[in-house]
């Protein structure tokens, strides 16, 4: 069941469009904001609210990079793997993150603290290499800086 807050936030978006289904991406993001990811159950509830079929909504959910259809850790690291960051040392950054966290790209640490995902160009190429942790942007990364950044997310 969608919580009253979730429902209220989704309905506020509905007011901005002539068609309910147009807010389906916003609606899944609302759910994700509250629960971290979009479960099968949440997908069904959103589909019902927006009068869409569940399959149709899932086809939208799986198209977009920022909708998570699997559980994620408490913090999501999105590390840029696009060209400017690649030139400036993405391989080193990825290597350090995977070694330190003991997981591969796409995985979550066993303690549920971090999920590590690749992301396309974050549009901060003059400060490459870059990554986001949750909604924070971190730039000009090197191994030491990564270590101190990770410490901040418990």
């Amino acid at each position, binding site marked *: 069941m969608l919580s009253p807050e979730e429902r209220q936030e989704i309905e506020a978006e509905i007011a901005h469009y002539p068609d309910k289904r147009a807010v389906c991406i916003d609606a899944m993001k609302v759910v994700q904001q509250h629960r971290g990811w979009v479960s099968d159950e949440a997908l069904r509830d959103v589909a019902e609210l927006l009068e869409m079929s569940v399959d149709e909504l899932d086809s939208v959910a799986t198209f977009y*990079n920022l909708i998570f259809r699997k559980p994620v850790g408490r913090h999501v690291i999105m590390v840029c793997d*696009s060209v400017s960051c*690649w030139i400036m040392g993405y391989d080193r950054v990825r290597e350090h993150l995977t070694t330190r966290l003991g997981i591969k790209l796409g995985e979550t640490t066993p303690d549920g603290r971090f999920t590590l995902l690749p992301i396309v160009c974050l549009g901060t190429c003059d400060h490459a290499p870059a990554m986001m942790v949750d909604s924070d942007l971190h730039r000009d990364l090197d191994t030491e800086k990564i270590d101190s950044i990770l410490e901040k997310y418990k």
Partner: protein
Amino acid sequence: MEKVLTKDLQPDGTPLDLKGYEKAGGYQGLRKALKMAPKDVTEIIKTSNLRGRGGAGFPTGMKWSFVPAGKDAPHPKYLCANADEMEPGTFKDRLLMESMPHQLIEGMIVAAYAIEADIAYIFLRGEYILCAERLRRALAEAYDNHCLGKNILGSGYSLDMHLHLSGGRYMCGEETGLLNALEGKRANPRTKPPFPQTSGLFGKPTIVQNVETLCNIHHIVNNGPDWFKGLSKSEDGGTKLYGASGKVKRPGVWELPMGTTIREILEEHAGGMKEGLKFRGLLPGGASTDFLVEQHLDVKMDFGEVQKAGSRMGTGTMIIMDDRTCPVGMVHNLEHFFAQESCGWCTPCWSGLSWAERILKGLEEGQGQEADLEKLSFLCRFAAPGNTFCALAPGAVEPLQSALKYFREDFMQHIREKRCPWR
């Protein structure tokens, strides 16, 4: 030289609030536009020679003139700001939105007025969180001060403006993909015709315009088309946000006259290559543009001149390749991006790009064969304009086809030595 778009850029990048913005001359272009007939605003933009800053360079005023006008025109009409800055190596619209949100909003209101739009959306990348916060605040201020909503500044014109945060996919930056995404669908491209100007968002007349383009609109209305043309060093009017990333001394983004040479941007503004490194080549305007090399450094960065040199100005943010970066590895990285971001709608794109990615991976890992180069050339032709549904695949093969031309010996070395010589 005169700065227009970054005139109000504060040293720490924090935006002016509405009061500060108005004090600096903000919302004057809007006031002036609201006293004119909408078609006259379009006429000014047409005369100014403003061309779209998103990459394709389509003349803005001409685009607007295709929107049905007058009493019998279908409503609601829509204006969409394409703020889905996802072209790898591009970081100019972020600056405009983070540091000058009211400028975008004012430009959008004037553009919407010109086409008599009823609703405007800002389609923003989901990852641009700071932009979203600042735009939300600026939108609220604009509503509070009657620059948005019913009867804007007493003119009788009404416009609502909403912010949409994308679910994240490169295809959303494609005009019709963006419209599908706004309708809550997968961002596949649509067949054209009908063009969005007549049948776009929810089947209604719609204009989609890049952020930087929109930021220019009210300045042109305020100062006139001749002033705008005079800002430039080329036939294309205005200033341009140029950028440089890669191993240069001072990567960044700068507002310069349209038509500034690549050499000036690279050497004077970006400070040249980092110590000990040599310039090898560059992508002039994002990942989907052809490589240019040493012989092209004196090319003017505008739509026509870069095209004559065999590439595209694209977004105007250059990605610089130095002599210690592997061209094959760089193109592999690019094709990985394009193959991943392909929406899967047409075969040359979903199949061709992932095939190219696999071949490039093989080359990097020492499994390359001479026949691979012919296959890659074939795939570039296979994905050429006319064979695909939208511009993603043709853009995707631009760096590949030009790398095969300028860095062929590097590909050969990978094949001969059965390894990447840079590793």
